[in-house]
């Protein structure tokens, strides 16, 4: 594991040509020869120590010069096979070697290591047992890897064996360890992705086992150092004896490591973990033991892949179970959907393995588990409404990077996964995950001080953990495809439930309309009757009942008329919330003129001057409803006048570019229309209450006796458009009613 340091050093690490170092480790020898003449082209400088002949004496010579004929036959047969790889027993110059054969740069390359004692039949059986027993004994992936660490340590004799897994594309963790008690534990430590440079990863995939037998040994150069045809050293990527990068050697030396070995864990051809071994002193692990370790790693990879598939299937089943359970309870419950959902917090969270969730279903958000505050979630919902979703889901592991306000609550919501329930409205289910550093248990020795010295800071596990922490700051564990599938699944189910609710609602709306219509009609009729009989009475016997009697009869008639008017207003108001707007381009000027014609009698009657300072624009709205709004506002303005003053009403607008006093403009980019009068004005404490249904500020008989529904209806119509209707006024100062039209349809 190469350490992370500064960016410069990292870049240098990434560029270092570790396969072209042009040297080997001294515990063996290397020869490379051309085919088919089997003539030596490259030898390691230490060849004389093993074969008794100097490099220059060997170069250009055929292999037959020094190889035992049996070995030569073995080698020739291996070369004739399609992929000549594997271990060969080679005898040369009276010594027995383990030969590892591969091809590189057009040459056959043979690593030679001395045979260190024969394993024998008994020893081979012990090895097989050590390879197989972890697979049969362990229950679950972590336990299996722990067994593997133990088995590798036994097979190889290393002081410490760690199993290191890449948890995702950006970091790794030591998940199992077997060590001599004198060795430091690295178990549980996390490392940033930069710990293993890209080209090192590539080599880990190509050569699944790598031994550095003596971290302090000087590398042995090749002769010739540079291949004449290529102008560079022989590519030693495939050579087991390949020498080690000086940076890595420094790293090992600083850690007090005398020998190291790494075995790759591959899945479908990709590196997903490493078995890393350290020894305090040099350690020449016999080729047979190395091969046993390599086989064990392959078997474990297979075993884990199959266990993982089973685990994924089980996980999907578990989530499906959550969802089924959730849907059953939601369908069975008589409570509203949000209430039912909030009771099933465990299932909702379990579905995606989250620590918090929020339901934004149109009303106030419902929070479960660990979440940002209600206001923060509301703001987040507004932000989400503007994001583009992949299909129906949106996810990020680094919310703070895409949504700045989230930096205030990364502890609960570094990760966000959201599904959009309704394409036309901001309705979401949102899941949260905390910053990952908060979910990782420290398993090393955090209190151990960082050793200072040249190049040492980066070699220390503590420093490595710190570096890793920096790497994952503000990030949550990643959302897996299972998480996203489960989220999308819940969405599908919820939309089904919502549709059923909506269908029921539509039905009840239609029923309500019919009911309201019937009530309005059936109650209005008797009230009309009362008014008419009173009129008959007044006509027939008005003289006889005297002025007091006539006054009372008039009052009865007025009350009946008023009640009837209230009923109509209530009925209309109840319908306003459910009307479908019919959007289109409308000339506001035309609408206003039309309204003025209709209310002209009232305006003339009250001797009001009407001012329209400039032509109104054309823009999108529901012409009929906006007509109604202008009509309400102008009728109102005509009503509440101050005695003895010349009266006027002004209708106009303010463009988005023109200044407007705060808080009049609610949105920066829209037209604001207004109706202003010099009437009696409204005290500030009533600025909201006047918009309430049937809320009047004056005696019923005063100012022409409004029924208190006009402003409520006007505001609802404006809100249907997505706009706002509000008032600025003070007693004796007149009133200005403003309205905007929102974003338009869709």
């Amino acid at each position, binding site marked *: 594991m190469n350490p992370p340091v500064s960016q410069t050093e990292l870049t240098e690490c990434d560029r270092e040509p570790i396969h072209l170092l042009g040297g080997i480790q001294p515990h063996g020898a290397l020869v490379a020869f051309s085919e088919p003449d089997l003539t030596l082209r490259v030898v390691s400088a230490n060849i004389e120590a093993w074969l008794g002949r100097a490099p220059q004496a060997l170069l250009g010579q055929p292999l037959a010069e020094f190889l035992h004929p049996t070995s030569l036959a073995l080698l020739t047969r291996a070369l004739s096979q399609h992929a000549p790889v594997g271990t060969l027993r080679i005898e040369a110059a009276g010594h027995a070697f383990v030969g590892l054969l591969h091809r590189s740069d057009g040459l056959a390359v043979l690593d030679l290591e001395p045979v260190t004692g024969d394993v024998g039949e008994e020893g081979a059986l012990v090895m097989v047992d050590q390879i197989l027993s972890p697979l049969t004994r362990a229950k679950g992936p972590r336990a299996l890897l722990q067994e593997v660490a133990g088995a590798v340590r036994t097979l190889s004799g290393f002081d410490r064996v760690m199993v290191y897994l890449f948890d995702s594309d950006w970091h790794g963790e030591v998940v199992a360890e077997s060590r001599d008690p004198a060795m430091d534990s690295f178990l549980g430590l996390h490392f940033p992705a930069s710990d293993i440079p890209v080209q090192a990863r590539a080599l880990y995939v190509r050569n699944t086992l790598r031994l550095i037998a003596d971290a302090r040994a000087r590398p042995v150069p090749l002769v010739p150092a540079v291949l004449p045809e290529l102008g560079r050293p022989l590519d030693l990527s495939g050579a087991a004896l390949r020498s080690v990068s000086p940076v890595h050697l420094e790293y090992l030396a600083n850690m007090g490591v005398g020998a190291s070995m790494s075995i790759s864990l591959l899945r479908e051809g990709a590196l997903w973990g490493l078995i890393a071994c350290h020894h305090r002193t040099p350690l020449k692990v016999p080729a047979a033991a190395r091969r046993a370790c390599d086989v064990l790693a392959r078997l474990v990879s297979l075993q884990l892949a199959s266990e993982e598939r089973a685990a994924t299937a089980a996980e999907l089943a578990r989530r499906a179970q959550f969802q089924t359970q959730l849907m059953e309870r939601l369908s069975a419950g008589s409570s509203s959907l949000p209430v039912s959902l909030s009771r099933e917090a465990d299932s909702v969270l379990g579905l995606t393995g989250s620590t918090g969730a929020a339901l934004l279903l149109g009303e106030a958000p419902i929070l479960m588990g660990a979440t940002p505050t209600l206001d923060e979630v509301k703001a987040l919902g507004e932000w989400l409404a503007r994001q583009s979703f992949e299909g129906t889901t949106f996810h990020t592991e680094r919310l703070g990077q895409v949504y700045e306000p989230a930096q205030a609550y990364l502890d609960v919501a570094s990760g966000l996964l959201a599904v959009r329930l309704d394409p036309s409205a901001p309705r979401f289910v949102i899941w949260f995950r905390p910053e990952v550093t908060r979910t990782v248990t420290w398993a090393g020795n955090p209190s151990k001080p960082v050793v200072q010295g040249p190049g040492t800071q980066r070699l220390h596990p503590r420093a490595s953990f710190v570096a890793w922490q920096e790497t994952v700051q503000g990030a949550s564990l990643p959302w897996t495809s299972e998480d996203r599938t489960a989220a999308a699944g819940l969405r599908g189910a919820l939309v089904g439930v919502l549709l059923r609710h909506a269908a029921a609602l539509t039905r009840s709306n239609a029923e309500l309309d019919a009911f309201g219509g019937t009530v309005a*009609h059936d109650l*209005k*009729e008797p*009230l*009309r*009757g009362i*008014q*008419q*009989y009173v*009129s*008959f009475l007044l*006509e027939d016997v008005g003289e006889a009942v005297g002025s007091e009697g006539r006054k009372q009869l008039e009052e009865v008639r007025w009350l009946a*008329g008023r009640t*009837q008017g209230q009923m109509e207003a209530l009925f209309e108001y109840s319908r306003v919330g459910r009307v479908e707007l019919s959007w289109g381009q409308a000339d506001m000027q035309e609408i206003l003129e039309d309204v003025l014609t209709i209310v002209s009698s009232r305006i003339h009657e009250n001797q009001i001057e009407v001012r329209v300072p400039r032509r109104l624009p054309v823009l999108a709205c529901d012409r009929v409803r906006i007509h109604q709004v202008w009509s309400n506002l102008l009728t109102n303005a005509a009503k509440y006048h101050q005695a003895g003053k010349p009266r006027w009403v002004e209708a106009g607008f303010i463009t988005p570019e023109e200044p407007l006093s705060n808080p009049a403009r609610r949105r920066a980019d829209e037209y604001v229309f207004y109706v202003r009068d010099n009437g009696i004005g409204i005290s500030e404490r009533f600025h909201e209450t006047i918009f309430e249904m049937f809320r009047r500020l004056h005696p019923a008989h005063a100012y022409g006796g409004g029924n208190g529904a006009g402003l409520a209806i006007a505001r609802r119509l404006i809100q249907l458009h997505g706009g706002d209707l509000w008032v600025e006024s003070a007693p004796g100062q007149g009133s200005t009613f403003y309205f905007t039209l929102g974003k338009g349809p869709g």
Partner: protein
Amino acid sequence: MMDELKRPVLLVEDSDPDAEALQRLVRKLSLSWPIMRVADGESALDYLFQRGAYVDAPRPMLVLLDLHLPGVGGREILATLKADAHLRSLPVIVFSNSKRVEDVDGAYELGANSYLFKPSRLEELEDVVSALHHFWFNVARLPGLGGLPLG
């Protein structure tokens, strides 16, 4: 001609005060209409098709039709009349207290000849009845009367 002039106006109205108000106004304004009132849709159809109790009923000059009726509704009566070859030409004036767009447009779509809003206040009702009288009996020509105004 004189017989024709005695043909009644058929008032289809379930509300007693409304019917009485109209009759009072006819009297008050000295209008020369004989009014025949029926209070529900079933009776209106019987009258118009000369069935049951109304076998001998004279054909009316025009129909004043309330839309909201118990039983068979105003819309149904309108549709039935306008689908009948003999009755199609009979002018039907809807007389309703509804200002709803659906009601107004719906009545015209079904073939109503006119739609009048029925105000609650007698004074306003008087204006409407006068206008109705003036138009249908002085200005308009009614079918089957040889093109003469009735007034």
